[in-house]
């Protein structure tokens, strides 16, 4: 019974997955991910003539049954990769994702090294600020203090 239950669950997940994959893209989602080439904001933020034309194009392509990737690819073919609000996460576009992370990592290492050096330097300075007194000097100080107190 449990094997049948598992099979049924897996089948229902598969059906749900394929139904989700077949869902047509939403115009609003695409308009938030495509940049107006004139005003440089996303289409949903723009009323420029070219942005209105691009919104119409997106609706036409959705009605024609194109997938989100197909619509984006066709817009990139017309207007270049700058039309995508988010750079693609493969090929050269991957650099746009990796470089900031690499920069953060390098920055963290540099800050870590500097903090370590400073804190180590401070300990050394603190230690160095109280060297043991010379016995002769200590004796003279004690003598002076005794004379002062008397």
């Amino acid at each position: 019974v449990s094997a049948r239950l598992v099979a049924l669950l897996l089948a229902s997940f598969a059906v749900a997955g394929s139904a989700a994959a077949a869902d047509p893209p939403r115009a609003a989602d695409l308009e938030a991910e495509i940049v107006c080439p004139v005003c440089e904001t996303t289409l949903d933020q723009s009323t420029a003539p070219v942005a209105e034309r691009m919104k119409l194009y997106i609706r036409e392509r959705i009605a024609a049954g194109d997938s989100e990737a197909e619509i984006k690819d066709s817009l990139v073919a017309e207007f270049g990769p700058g039309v995508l609000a988010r750079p693609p996460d493969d090929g050269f576009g991957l650099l746009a994702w990796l470089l900031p992370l690499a920069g953060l990592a390098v920055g963290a290492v540099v800050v870590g090294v500097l903090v370590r050096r400073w804190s180590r330097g401070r300990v050394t300075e603190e230690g160095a600020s109280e060297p043991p007194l010379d016995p002769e000097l200590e004796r003279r100080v004690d003598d002076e203090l005794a004379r002062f107190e008397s």
Partner: protein
Amino acid sequence: MAARRAKLVAQGIAIGLVALLFVLLVWALATDEGNDLAKRANAGELPEAPDFTLGRLEENEGELTLSSLRGKPVVVNMLASWCLPCREEAPILEQVWQRHRDRGLVVLGVATKDFRRDARRFATEQGITFPLVLDGPGDVWGPYGLTGLPETFVLDRQGKVVEAIVGAVNTDEDRARLNAAIRRASRS
């Protein structure tokens, strides 16, 4: 002592970076000539027209390089199908092309930030017969300092910009200005 030196080095690096950024900012502002192209042309400086190679609107017609037109006066018209003033001036530029083409003048339309299909339809509707190239990504905007459309640049035979008209050529005054620029460009 070592800590103080490390601190000084870090401070030096930070101050150096800020200074470098400031120098880069000043340099960028000082050398930002692209946005002044129209201003410089209209001040009589004769700036060189930024070169470009773009595909013809009809894909089977190959590419066109602006500098290949050296030796001829050229009117470069930046346009788009979604630009309403471009519709007003297209017939005027077509007239200019028809009137002067036998004397060697080239009118070159650059359909920019536009769908190829829309630009083709625009050309057909407006009866444009002068050559058209397509710049979908808008690569000419930076070098030519475009802030909107249309803009028209008149180039002499050496490829220098003798006149830049920002906005549509749609009044008698604009036409007179364009014709005068073409005469100057043809004489050079």
